[in-house]
Structures are given as structure tokens and as C-alpha cells.
């Protein structure tokens, strides 16, 4: 039996004397697409920091990819929360992806290694391959600041994927995107998750655009956590309890769920 990608066992985290969440026990299975949801300030990004070992737990145990937390970081791809690149950022998309491959190696690359050495050619090929995988070949040579928000996210996902991770941590990658791009990037993440057997933890603000692509949802709220398949967890009663406010869950003709009244969701997703 394979170990889960992430295993939190009665984990508690405090930051600056404040308990962010306590006694959280969850398992993220390998190869599944899990959304991390919950109200603002509840510690969603903190959870990713804990999984990366950047923030220690004050009690409990954390295992990542079958190893104690922090040991397996080479097998994790991480996309931090960020605003868009400044339009004047003078590097190309392909450079940004490349840094995911060798940006932690000291020194400068050997000039023309990509033309004359085996390993140099292999690295160039890997960068090209992953750019193709996310569908960014058309704009990878452009300065990254001049790519659209959706294009930048695809390139950053390529950066996180370039070392063939087994676990992908994405911190609000959809936040700055319009609805169409939110759907297409979610679709890309699901495709990556399926075809490469990568477990994905995606922190999101609004569940609606990603719902069709998810395997499980992990709600953080009121200091604790609740995880399960969307159809079980996303009910009016559960969400109202978690957020402490009235929330409705509607189902359309095709069986798709829509969450209404969630305080953090954007207005575009409807009021009644």
C-alpha cells in the first residue's frame, strides 16, 4: 500500500502566539486533486507552509510523500501566492520555467551547454516539454510581464512541474484570473493530476469554478478541518456550520453544485 502524499496527524500550528488551527488530521491521497477552502485568515496558505516544512507544527505529526516533513521538498512543486509579474520584468517565460529546474544551483550555467553537452541538451528538452504540456509554447519566448494573467499562471505551473514532482502545492493560482481562464487553468491542473499521477493541493477563494475538476475538498474553519468528496462535504448545512453564516448549495440539471452566499466568493457567482 502506498503512503498518502500528505498525512497530518493531530497537527496544531501557532503563529505569533495565536493558534491558527489545531488537532487537524487529514490525508491527501496520491494522485488526487484536492482544493483547500475556507474563510479568509483561517490558515489555508499556512497549511501549505507546513507541508513544505517552512513552518513547524507545535504538536502532532506531519508526513509528506512517506517521509518526515521537509525531507521530500525536492519532490514537491510549489506555486506561491503572488500578484502578477510587473509588465517590465525583463525575463522570458522560458527563463522563469528554467529557474524551476536549476534556479537553486549556485553559479551561472556553462555557456552554450544546451548545444554541446548531453545534460545541457536534456535540460533544454525538459523545459520545452513541460512548456508544451501546459500549452504555453506560443508565448514562452515573450517577456513574462507582457503575458496575460492566465498565460503567466500556466508558465508558473510549468515551473512548478519541471522537476516532475509527486505533489503540487498551488496557493490561489486562480485568484487574479477571469472566469474563463479559471476554468481552463483548473482543467489543465486536473489533466496534469491525472496524466502524471501528481497529487494537487490547491488553495482557492471560490469553490465554484474548480468544483467540476475536484476529487476532494478540504475545508479549514473555526480552527479545525473537514475533508471529503464535494458531494458529501458541500452541503448547505455543513458549509453554513463551517462559515458561521447562511450558505446555500444549489444543484443544476446536470448535477453540478453551485455554492451561493459564501462570504468570500465573488459577486459574479450570483446572489438571490
Amino acid at each position, binding site marked *: 500500500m502506498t503512503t498518502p502524499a500528505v498525512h497530518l496527524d493531530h497537527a496544531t500550528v501557532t503563529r505569533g502566539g495565536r493558534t491558527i488551527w489545531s488537532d487537524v488530521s487529514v490525508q491527501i491521497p496520491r494522485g488526487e486533486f484536492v482544493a483547500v477552502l475556507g474563510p479568509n485568515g483561517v490558515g489555508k496558505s499556512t497549511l501549505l507552509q507546513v507541508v*513544505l516544512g*517552512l513552518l513547524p507544527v507545535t504538536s502532532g505529526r506531519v508526513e509528506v510523500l512517506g517521509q518526515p516533513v521537509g525531507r521530500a521538498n525536492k519532490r514537491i512543486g510549489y506555486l506561491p501566492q503572488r500578484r502578477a509579474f510587473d509588465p517590465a520584468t*525583463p525575463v522570458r517565460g522560458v527563463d522563469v520555467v528554467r*529557474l524551476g529546474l536549476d*534556479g537553486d*544551483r*549556485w*553559479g551561472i550555467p556553462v555557456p552554450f551547454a544546451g548545444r554541446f553537452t548531453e545534460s545541457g541538451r536534456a535540460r533544454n528538452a525538459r523545459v520545452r516539454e513541460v512548456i508544451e504540456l501546459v500549452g504555453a509554447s506560443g508565448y514562452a519566448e515573450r517577456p513574462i510581464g507582457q503575458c496575460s494573467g492566465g498565460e503567466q499562471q500556466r508558465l508558473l505551473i510549468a515551473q512548478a512541474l519541471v522537476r516532475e514532482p509527486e505533489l503540487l502545492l498551488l496557493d490561489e493560482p486562480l485568484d487574479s484570473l477571469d472566469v474563463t481562464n479559471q476554468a481552463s487553468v483548473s482543467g489543465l491542473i486536473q489533466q496534469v493530476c491525472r496524466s502524471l499521477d501528481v497529487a494537487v493541493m490547491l488553495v482557492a477563494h471560490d469553490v465554484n469554478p474548480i468544483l467540476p475538476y475536484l476529487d476532494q475538498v478540504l475545508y479549514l474553519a473555526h480552527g479545525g478541518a473537514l475533508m471529503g468528496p464535494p458531494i458529501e462535504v458541500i452541503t448547505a448545512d455543513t458549509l453554513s456550520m463551517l462559515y458561521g453564516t447562511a450558505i446555500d448549495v444549489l444543484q443544476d440539471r446536470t448535477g453540478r453544485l453551485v455554492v451561493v452566499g459564501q462570504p468570500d466568493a465573488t459577486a459574479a457567482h450570483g446572489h438571490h
Partner: protein
Amino acid sequence: MDVHLSWNLVNDLRQLLEFHFMVNALRAGTIVAIVAGAIGYVMVIRRQSFAGHTLALVGFPGAAGAVWLGLDASIGFFGFCIAAAVLLGLAPAGGSGQQSAAIGIVQSFGLACGLLFVSLYHGFLSGLNNLLFGTIVGVTDRQVLVLLIAGVVALVALAALGRPLLFTSIDEAAARSRGVPTRLVGIAFLVLLGVAAAGASQVTGSLLVFSLLVAPAATAVRLTARPVVGLVLSVAIALVVTWLGESAAYFSSYPIGFWVTTFAFGLFLLANGYRAVVK
């Protein structure tokens, strides 16, 4: 000294290299342009121009103080710039408005101290101009040697920081998650910036350091989005404006700082024009 521009390239070059002081000025300028062009390029990518400006200004009281105490000006430039870089690097990060206000206050206090040292050291009035706006006369052999050693060390260190520095500069959180010691890299780069600012100060003067540290890099950034090409271009532009500026200062009665800054600004405008036309 009787020199005049003959518009005969060979003859002009011969005139240019006739005096030892000018050979030294060209040597110093060449070293400083290479270092400032390369480090300035990374500084522009990191958006640390304000820090670079601060370090350059802090060099002035250092140099003035050193002269007052009977030491080499270059000791003061390097000592103060590097010390200030370490302090700036250790200061709590965040880049808040409060922090830049504090840096601004320290800047003006530094200028004031420099002025004090200059007046304490009587008979140094032309020295004030030289420290603030640069000069081509009076670069000693020893100064050239110090610049060369500092420059080589700085460039080797820049190459060693290499990829992690670029990664940290454009995507700090991602770099940290990959195990890059981003804070350490940031402090190390500030020290390199201090070295570059101290070196450039000795050619263009403290106030006009930006003509070598920022203008070539900002010009290069407008012309290419390839990091390696950009860095090489930045160095090339810094070299061209330095050589042109020093030659112009030699054949005219106007100071080097003015010429280097003017050529650098001219190229910057041309690059902006090129971008406006192409885009």
C-alpha cells in the same frame, strides 16, 4: 596641457594616451564600467535602485572623512559603502514606506556629515566637486589596483551567486521553497552593490553614480528580455559611455560626470524611442 580634438582617430587616440593620469583614468573607468554595468543590471531587475542610490551617497562622507584623516579616499568609499550595505541588508525587510523614509533621512545625514568633513579639512574645495561629480585627474596607480582587485572579487562573487540570485530576484517565494537562502543571497548582493557603488563613485562622483549603475542597465532592459544578453549589453553600454565620457572630458573643459551622465541619458532616451517605435 595643449590638447584638442583633431577628428583624426589615430591622432586623437595618441593624444588621449599621452599622459599617465589619463591612462589611469581610462583603466579605472574600464574596470568600474564593467562592474557597475553587470551589478547594476541585477539591481534594476531586483528594483533596488533606491538602495543603490543610498549606498552611493553614503560613500561621500566616507571618502571626505578619509581625506580629512589623511587616508586614501578609496578606503573611505569602499569602507562606508560596504558597511552601509551590510546594515541595509540586516535591517528588517518589508519595504514599507516607513523604511524608505528612514533611509532617506540617513541619506541626507550622510551628505551633511560629508560636508562637515570637507569643511574640517581646510583647502579642499575642489575636492568637494571631485567627490560629488567626479574627475579624470588624480587617479593613482594604487587606486587602479584597488579597483581592479575589488572588481574581480565582485564579479566572481556575482557569478557564484548566479542562478539563485536571479531566481530570488524575480520569484522570491518560489526560490525559498526550493531551498535557496534568499535572505543571505539578498545581503550578499547588497554588499556587491556597495562595492560597485564605491567603485563607480571614484569615476563619476557620488552624486552621478547612477549614470553607470542604473542608466546602462535600464537601457539594456528596454532592449532585451534575455537575462544573459541583457547583462552583456548593460556592460557594453557602460563601457561605451565611460570611454566616450572620459574622452570628451579630456578634450573639453567640462567635467567627466557631466559627459558620462549625458551620454548614458542619451542612450536611455534612444532605447525608449526604439521601444516606442517597435512596440
